[in-house]
């Protein structure tokens, strides 16, 4: 079809370095092409240089770079354009959507003002009414409800999803040929992510747009992209048509990456819960947060928990799932007695080990390095924990520490380091190790994976699984990521605005979830989208788990 034409975008041997006495290289030797109608995904972990690369395509780098190579888009050699041609290029040829929509919009100006500003550039002779109509029309096209009334509104008054739609509308006002989207969904809730990506797809079809999507989330690219390029540490490791790169990656790094992010439908066959002893019970717990005394008097509050009931048993991993505002973090705090419920019971049952001692519960937090004293060496911090709890013998402490470090899959050499010198994954496992030192019966992990890259997430999940399997520790896992749930959870509790919407073993959960909200969450998991289906219709859900289908399940239905 388009093969004979020149590509819309051609990047040749791109190298970017920060200028300075010693130039710091960011990316090197990057080459790729985007043709008309392509949906090109640039993937990589943080630090891979993907964001810098896409910013460089519009000359939007935050620093003065040393550039090698050539970027040609829509017939322009981007880095040799003069000021006025650069402005014209940014207006007509390319549009960009950024990661955090709230930050990307000017907080002190209304949505309308910002839209009119851009519209005026494209339609300098139009009068005020005409411009306003165009603005409303643009908002309508991105499916913003009541577009007329949104013009006078400020960005902070809209949700993240709506703001991102505004951003997309703004980027497309000039009818560009290429839309660059830099992690457009990372800052959004999972159910909204799918909507925004669908919108981009729709815009692509309607306006005959090419898309360059930059992301670390491989599930997205499997679904929607036509081409994938993988970046690692500033170099391009692999690229090609989406299907071949995603399903049969050649390079070792790509293999690791895709494997770590693949959605494994759980093959655990249990349909009933085990009869192990109870560790934690939430019984009709209620808690509401009020913004002010007046709100409290009026009963206008944010429900963090409403008749919340669920249990956690020995040796199982219970995943508490919900989007932001669902009350999952509050539930964790209440379980740790950091917050008191307004009503209802939170029961910590006697330790399953001997039924005499109270339950030993430890917590693992979201930001690993924040949980550790940045100045003390890991070893000293671990020793301190034990000595505060009565372990007087230094030799015994050392022995126990070494064993625990091994249990979490770390090597002993992290002990001598300070937390700043640990990677995120190492730090998180140190925090887990610290929690394990006291031989807890139960671990509460509050979003332990969100601050870490996808390959390390796998290590941490394996670590948690080991703890459950070998030590019989019960784990209450708080997360918003369903893929994590599928990977290791035994029981799934879905929260929405403080209510328990679903509380089932994980296999039943994926077979035929009853609640429509849960179904929405499942559908939103990237990796669920059948791009070969007619008109992008979604499937009814994942296939039922069958033992000999394990291989098939890694590939999308």
């Amino acid at each position, binding site marked *: 079809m388009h093969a004979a034409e020149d590509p819309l975008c051609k990047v040749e041997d791109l190298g970017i370095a920060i200028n300075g006495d010693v130039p710091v290289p960011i990316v090197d030797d990057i080459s790729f092409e985007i043709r008309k109608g392509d949906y090109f995904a640039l993937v990589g972990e943080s630090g891979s240089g993907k964001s810098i690369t896409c910013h460089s395509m519009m000359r939007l780098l935050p620093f003065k770079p040393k550039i090698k190579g050539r970027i040609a888009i829509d017939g322009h050699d981007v880095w040799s354009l003069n000021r006025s041609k650069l*402005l014209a*290029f940014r207006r007509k040829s390319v549009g960009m959507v950024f990661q955090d929509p709230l*930050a990307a*919009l*000017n907080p*002190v*100006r209304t949505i309308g003002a910002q839209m009119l500003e851009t519209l005026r550039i494209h339609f300098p002779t139009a009068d005020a009414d005409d411009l306003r109509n165009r603005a409303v029309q643009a908002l309508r096209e991105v499916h913003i409800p009541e577009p007329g009334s949104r013009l006078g509104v400020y960005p*902070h*008054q809209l949700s993240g999803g709506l703001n991102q739609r505004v951003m997309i509308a703004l980027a497309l006002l000039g009818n560009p040929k290429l839309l660059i989207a830099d992690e457009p969904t990372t800052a959004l809730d999972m159910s909204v992510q799918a909507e925004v990506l669908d919108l981009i797809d729709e815009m692509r079809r309607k306006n005959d747009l090419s898309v360059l999507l930059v992301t670390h989330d491989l599930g997205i690219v499997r679904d929607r992209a036509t081409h994938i390029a993988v970046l690692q540490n500033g170099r391009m490791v692999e690229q090609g048509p989406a299907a071949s790169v995603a399903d049969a990656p050649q390079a070792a790094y790509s293999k690791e990456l895709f494997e770590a992010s693949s959605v494994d439908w759980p093959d655990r066959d249990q349909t009933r819960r085990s009869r192990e002893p109870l560790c934690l019970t939430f019984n009709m717990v209620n808690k509401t947060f009020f913004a002010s005394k007046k709100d409290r008097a009026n009963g206008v509050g944010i429900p963090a928990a409403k008749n919340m009931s669920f249990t956690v048993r020995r040796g199982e991993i219970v995943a508490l799932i919900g989007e932001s505002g669902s009350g999952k973090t509050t539930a964790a705090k209440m379980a740790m007695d950091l917050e008191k419920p307004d009503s209802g019971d939170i029961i910590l049952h006697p330790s399953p080990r001997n039924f005499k001692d109270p339950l030993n519960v430890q917590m693992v937090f979201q930001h690993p390095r924040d949980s550790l004293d940045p100045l003390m060496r890991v070893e000293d911090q671990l020793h301190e924990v034990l000595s505060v709890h009565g372990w007087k013998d230094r030799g015994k402490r050392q022995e126990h520490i070494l064993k625990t470090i091994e249990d979490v899959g770390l090597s002993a050499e992290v002990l001598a380091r300070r937390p700043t010198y640990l990677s995120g994954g190492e730090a998180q496992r140190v925090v887990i190790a610290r929690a394990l030192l006291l031989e807890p019966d139960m671990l509460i992990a509050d979003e332990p994976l969100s601050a870490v890259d996808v390959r390390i997430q796998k290590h941490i999940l394996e670590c948690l699984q080991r703890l459950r399997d070998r030590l019989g520790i019960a784990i209450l896992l708080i997360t918003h990521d369903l893929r994590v749930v599928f990977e290791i959870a035994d029981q799934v509790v879905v929260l929405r605005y403080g209510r328990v919407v679903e509380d089932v073993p994980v296999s039943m959960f994926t077979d035929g979830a009853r609640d429509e909200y849960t179904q929405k969450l499942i559908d939103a998991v990237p990796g669920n989208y059948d791009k070969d289906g007619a008109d992008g219709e979604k499937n009814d859900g994942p296939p039922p788990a069958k033992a000999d289908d394990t291989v098939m399940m890694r590939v999308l239905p």
Partner: protein
Amino acid sequence: MNFGFRLLRALISLWLIVTLVFLALRATGDPITAIFDPDNTTQAALDAYRRQWGYTGSVFDQYLAYLSNLLHGDFGFSSMANRDAFSVVTDRLPATLELVGCSALLMMLIGIPVGAIAAINDGGRIDRFVMTFSTVGFALPNFVLGLGLILLFAVNLHWLPSNGIGTPEHLIMPVLTIGISQAAIFTRFVRSSILDALKLQCVTSARARGISEWNVFWFHVIPNALLPLVTITPLLVGAMVAASAVVESVFGWPGIGRLIVESVAQRDLAVLQMIVMMIAAVMITTNLIVDLTYSRLDPRTSLARAH
């Protein structure tokens, strides 16, 4: 929080200051003997003054009398000037206003463009030069600068008068002293506000849409840079007040600043208390204005929650 609430809070703060001053005066012992030398005044006269200013009766009665005096504009009797404190202070007010007003103007005339250019230049030669100037200006005490100017322009070159008030020439050196001194810090603030605004994601996003640098600067950078600058206004006003106290003494400028020093040296508590309350009122008013202005400028503060 609306205007009425904030106004009420401001008035309460003012009342608290007034009460504190009252208590402080009482803490030094009998204020009458502090103001009137008991050796030179007859007991009858002392009693008469006591009655006149309500220093009789219980502390609470005295307090009420004190408040009522204040509301009538009676701030007591100045011992060093031999007339009511109110007129002593108000006589000197215009001189200080003139000095502080012109200095503030100079400070902004220097600070805003220099700070903006430094921010845009970030890291370049101009920027480093400006930062050096700012550091040096900050370390140079204003009275040293003033004396240096006197040494140069008055003593050596005989171009400008070193003392007093009256002609525009008298105004030049004092204004230069305070203006340059304050400009050092102000430039830094301007620079860092604009620098932070330049780094905002919304600026990059505006550039991405092909908006010209000029428009990006005036419609996206400046509005966001104004916010932190507005919040430091009370600090600047306070610094000006402090500077005037010293610089007026250097140049013999007959303003409030010098009056403070004189009244402290001569223990004229009536004048001192009036000046303190006046300064407090100015600061409280400034804070109130800044508060209201900020909520006007930043839509995130005055509006409630997201739809």
